[in-house]
């Protein structure tokens, strides 16, 4: 179906034409290819949700750098995901003002409601829960982001309401299927 759109590299990994087009646009702004490393990782992550080893190798090859060097960049940053994430990432602020305003209790509530701890994805693959440094909304603490939405003044009722559609199966640690 989409074969015409795929570029096959000799590593057997693929970037789509669209991904390559976007990465090449970024290359125009940098003096050497590796300079677009973070942009390229973000482009691929936007398309695929995360950056797999396979994608990483394909990007590295396209940027003429080693996969190890690119992985060093990828793993440095909090918002580049090197493991699959759910449809939406919950970025839960656990920094000082939110802590003073009781975020630990809210975190416990979310974990119980969704059956996940930090770094885990719900069994229905909807949400991944991650801690995030201060979201710059400390006057509205406690706060978190769900996908692109900032949600402020969190309390237990709000958590119930936000995640009313989520049903948790018995075990959170299902492992890979």
């Amino acid at each position: 179906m989409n074969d015409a759109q795929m570029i096959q590299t000799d590593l057997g990994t693929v970037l789509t034409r669209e991904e390559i087009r976007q990465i090449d646009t970024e290359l125009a702004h940098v003096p050497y290819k590796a300079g677009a490393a973070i942009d390229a990782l973000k482009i691929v992550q936007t398309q695929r949700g995360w950056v797999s080893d396979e994608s990483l190798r394909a990007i590295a090859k396209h940027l003429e750098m080693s996969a190890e060097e690119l992985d060093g960049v990828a793993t440095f940053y909090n918002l580049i995901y090197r493991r699959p994430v759910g449809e939406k990432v919950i970025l839960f602020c656990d920094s000082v003002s939110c802590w003073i305003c009781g975020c630990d209790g809210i975190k416990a509530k979310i974990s119980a409601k969704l059956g996940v701890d930090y770094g885990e994805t719900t069994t229905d693959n909807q949400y991944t829960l991650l801690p995030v440094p201060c979201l710059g909304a400390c006057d509205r603490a406690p706060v978190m982001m769900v996908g692109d939405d900032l949600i402020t003044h969190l309390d237990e009722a709000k958590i119930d309401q936000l995640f009313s559609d989520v049903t948790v199966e018995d075990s959170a640690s299902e492992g890979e299927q």
Partner: protein
Amino acid sequence: MEKVLTRNIGPEQTPTDLKAYEANGGYQGLRKALRELSPKDCQTVISDSNLRGRGGAGFPTGMKWSFVPMGDSCTPGHKYLVCNADEMEPGAFKDRLLMECDPHQLIEGMILAAYTIGADVSYVFIRGEYVVAIERLRGALAECYASGLLGENILGSGFSLEMHVHPSAGRYICGEETALINALEGKRANPRAKPPFPQVSGLWGRPTIVNNVETLCNIPHIIDRGADWYKTLGRGEDSGTKMFGVSGRVKNPGCWELPMGTPIREILEVYAGGMQDGLQLRGFLPGGGSTDFLVPEHLDLAMDYNVIGKAGSRMGTGTLIILDDQTCPVGMVLNLIRFFAHESCGFCTPCREGLPWTRQVLQDIEDGRGQLEDLETLAYQVKYIGAMGNTHCALAPGAMEPLQSALKYFRDDFDRHISGGCCPYESHKVHQHQHQQIGTGA
């Protein structure tokens, strides 16, 4: 008081578009500069205004700009102006408001800064979580390109500038200006050795100025109305107005533009409405998570750089974090150290190894496993990790600031944890120690 930075920001906090911005005097500063001021004139006005950087360090802006090689003393090639919109300091929430509600003010400030230093390319380096600000800045940039305020030959002046919004991939250290430059170059964001300073050799080895959002938002007004006017705005020794914020358990947490030199008591009691019912003030960090605690005896101090400095802390970002009498000071410092340990870039040993060690000692004390010797260990860590020069950048010394002052002002609390074998504060105890740093980063 006259509103300057927030004059377009009403209680509804709706964004200001180009039309509304211009209708309220927007781009007058830029028009004036392009019409009648040379870059050198602009730099002189900013120097004369005594504007100091609002990113935390308070470095005089005009002086910083004066280090950029100009004219024949500069080798041919690009120069860069970068706006630092990373805002990840715990407890800091002022730049978000300025960008979400009045993006053109920042853009005008950036065009003027670029004009002054002769930059032809500029970036807003903004944390990726600020999705609303990113969208509004991009919208505002498009308006500017469409009306000749950005791009080639701006307003027929012969001056050209490109501007890009560059969302960060996320890491606190990216806010340090040389680490930010490495992030813009697509690398791991380790800070660089200085010298060379970025003003001479920054992005891609070219002269680069990095300024905070709030710093840049001041520029259009100073250029438009002059240094003397700007100096009259402060109530104490510093010039201008400042975004001050209060978070923690107060009645009315928020962020307000007030004159420099406003007394802390006024910010806390009048604007933030005082403590929530049933709570007393124990102490506060005056300028974000990497500043030293001050205590109620400091309430009548003016929020001026040198005044706060003399009291043993720093103005930092100007956003106060309030510690109340029912929140555990040890737990609060533990939360901060955990943040700094997690965000350490790992480049130098005292920070990479030292901060997790400090975190562990504090965790033991908080959990009731502490020993008296632990306090000596903490004092030792403060001394060695906190000393500027032992680490490659200011992250680790900054991390030690709340700890060293907590040991000074809240020593009793540390002792009570150790002698009682548990945390004497009940609230916040739940699930604190199950908290670990787990990310999906490999």
